[in-house]
C-alpha cells in the first residue's frame, strides 16, 4: 500500500524568509503524481503545486517550488519570501493514474511577522 509521511507536524518561518516542508512516500509504482495542498483555517483544500513522476524537472509556481528526488522517494516543498497568507496546514499527497489521493498527516505552518 502507498503511504505518505510528513515528519514535521509544525513548522514556523519569519515573514519574507524561506521554509522547506518535507514529505516522503512509499510506492512500488514508477508512474505517479505528487501534490501539495494548502488548507487554511477555512479548511478548504487548495492545490499549491503538482509534480509528475516521469518529469525530472522540479515544478515551480511563483514562490513555491519542489525538490523531487524520485530515487529517495522524497518530495519537499519550498516556500520563498514567505507571506502571512501562507500560514496554513500543508498536505503532501500521492496518486497513481486513475486512483485515489493518499495524503500525509500534514504540516502546520506558522508565519511570524
Amino acid at each position, binding site marked *: 500500500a502507498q503511504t505518505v509521511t510528513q515528519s514535521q507536524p509544525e513548522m514556523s518561518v519569519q515573514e519574507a524568509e524561506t521554509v522547506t516542508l518535507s514529505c516522503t512516500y512509499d510506492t512500488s509504482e514508477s508512474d505517479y*503524481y505528487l*501534490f501539495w*495542498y494548502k488548507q487554511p483555517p*477555512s*479548511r*478548504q*483544500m*487548495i*492545490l499549491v503545486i*503538482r509534480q*509528475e513522476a516521469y518529469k525530472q524537472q522540479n515544478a515551480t509556481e511563483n514562490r513555491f517550488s519542489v525538490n523531487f528526488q524520485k530515487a529517495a522517494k522524497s518530495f519537499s516543498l519550498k516556500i520563498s519570501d514567505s507571506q502571512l497568507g501562507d500560514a496554513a496546514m500543508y*498536505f503532501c*499527497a500521492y496518486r497513481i*493514474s*486513475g*486512483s*485515489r*489521493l*493518499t*495524503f*500525509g*498527516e*500534514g504540516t502546520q505552518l506558522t508565519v511570524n511577522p
Partner: protein
Amino acid sequence: EPEVTQTPSHQVTQMGQEVILRCVPISNHLYFYWYRQILGQKVEFLVSFYNNEISEKSEIFDDQFSVERPDGSNFTLKIRSTKLEDSAMYFCASSEHRDYDEAFFGQGTRLTVV
C-alpha cells in the same frame, strides 16, 4: 474560475439520522470523489465515481454510505444512520481526466453528529 460547490457548509444531525451531503462538481469534469477529514487528522479517501458508478471505494465506505448523481449537475453522499464517529469535514472533489489531473476540492461540509 470554475469551482466545486458543496452544501450545506455545516450540518448538525442526531445520531441515527440520515444525512445527504450535496456537491456540484465543475461542469466539464467527469470524475467525482468524496474525502473526509476527522478533526486534527489527515484527509481520507472515501469513494470515487465515474460514468454513474463507483470506480473505487475505501474500507471506510461501508454499507451505510452511498453516492448518487441524481441529475447532470449534483453529486451526493448519503449516510444512512449516522454515528458519532461520522463527525468530520466531508470534501467533494472532481477532475476532468482520470489519469493525470489534480482533483479540485470544494470548501467542505462540516458534519456534526450529536
